[in-house]
């Protein structure tokens, strides 16, 4: 089946099987920042933004993306660099496997709730697991990023 999707600002055509998931379609297109984690909607590692909203690409049928706009971390390079700086400064960065998904979730948070409280930050990121750096330092980094002027 043919689908037409805007990926990181560029309109692209994909030929997908009905049961293909977005994580596979995007990785097949060379977007390797989209990573596979639990593969069951639980860990948030595969997060991408569909029409600005974070979704788990491991459980999102590619066909559903037809006509929609998708952002991966490659599409928010300058903002991702700012987020990475904050994470580095707060020691919130270790193995890096979850970084693209967290960066996208934080990017979406800034556009949805720019003045999010600590509780709202925790609430927003509850589905994005990190198994090495610890969440307290991430919280400090995200707060710092949100306070930064655009």
């Amino acid at each position: 089946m043919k689908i037409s999707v805007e990926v990181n600002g560029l309109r692209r055509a994909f030929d997908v099987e009905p049961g293909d998931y977005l994580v596979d379609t995007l990785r097949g297109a060379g977007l390797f920042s989209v990573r596979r984690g639990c593969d069951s909607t639980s860990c948030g590692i595969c997060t991408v933004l569909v029409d600005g909203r974070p979704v788990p690409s491991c459980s999102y049928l590619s066909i559903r993306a037809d006509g929609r706009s998708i952002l991966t971390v490659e599409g928010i390079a300058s903002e991702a660099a700012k987020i990475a700086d904050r994470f580095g400064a707060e020691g919130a960065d270790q193995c890096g496997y979850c970084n693209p998904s967290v960066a996208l979730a934080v990017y979406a948070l800034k556009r949805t709730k720019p003045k999010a409280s600590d509780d709202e930050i925790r609430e927003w990121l509850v589905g994005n697991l990190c198994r090495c750096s610890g969440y307290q330092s991430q919280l400090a980094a995200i707060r710092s990023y949100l306070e930064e002027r655009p």
Partner: protein
Amino acid sequence: MRIETLLRPASLEDAYKAYANDKTAVLFAGGAWNKLALKEVKTAILLDDLGLGTIEAGEKTVEIGAMATLSDVAEHPAVQSLYRGMLSRACRHVMGITLENVATIGGSVMGGYAFSDIVTPLLAMDVTLRFHKHEPMKLADYLVRKTNFRDIFVAVSVPRRSGRGVFRKIARTRLDFAILNLAVTNVNGLYAIAVGARPGIARLAASAMDRLNEINPVSLYDIEHAAADAAAELDFGTNSRAAEDYRRALAKIHVFRALKEVTFDENQR
């Protein structure tokens, strides 16, 4: 997942015909748990293009379309105004924003998931399910009858009552399925008590509600008895997350606290 044929109907009637005429067809109304439940699908019917994602606030009801995501529901002002935002909070307690952006009300109700954190508050809110062909049906009746007709679930109709509500999810972490969940409402002295993830799907504690609803005004003593009655009348079970006795003990204390909150808590007034 392997899908042999995928249909993307443009109208409700087309979707209904495709579903009614093919016993192997599976409706896709979101995407949260399809992957875990299904490996091979002969015919999948995507409901994305049917316009079922709207939420409309009427004078007497709020109509939540079956394809409205849990995020849509959580953020909608009309839903937030119902029962002190009980349903909005429940939608935000599922498993994080990514899942809440793909899980839908329709999938939550029709999926029949015993662990559902959404069915429980809907049950306590006395909602009605609307279908394309069949007559509307109370959620409470639907769950008891285990109706399995091949129809398209269109919307859930939530009565706009001025009431208080409390939802609780008891789980080890936010990402775990509930050990128990419950929703309690109080509309001018008429109470509803729903308990889910027992581990069976949500049920109303009908006898406890009836006894409590005969008392006016209720005291702390009445509430304590109602909570004990609810824990006694509902069936609980054991699975890998919790034992039957533990669930029953949790239900007793949490129903008590919820009843207390919807009766006496000044913040709920």
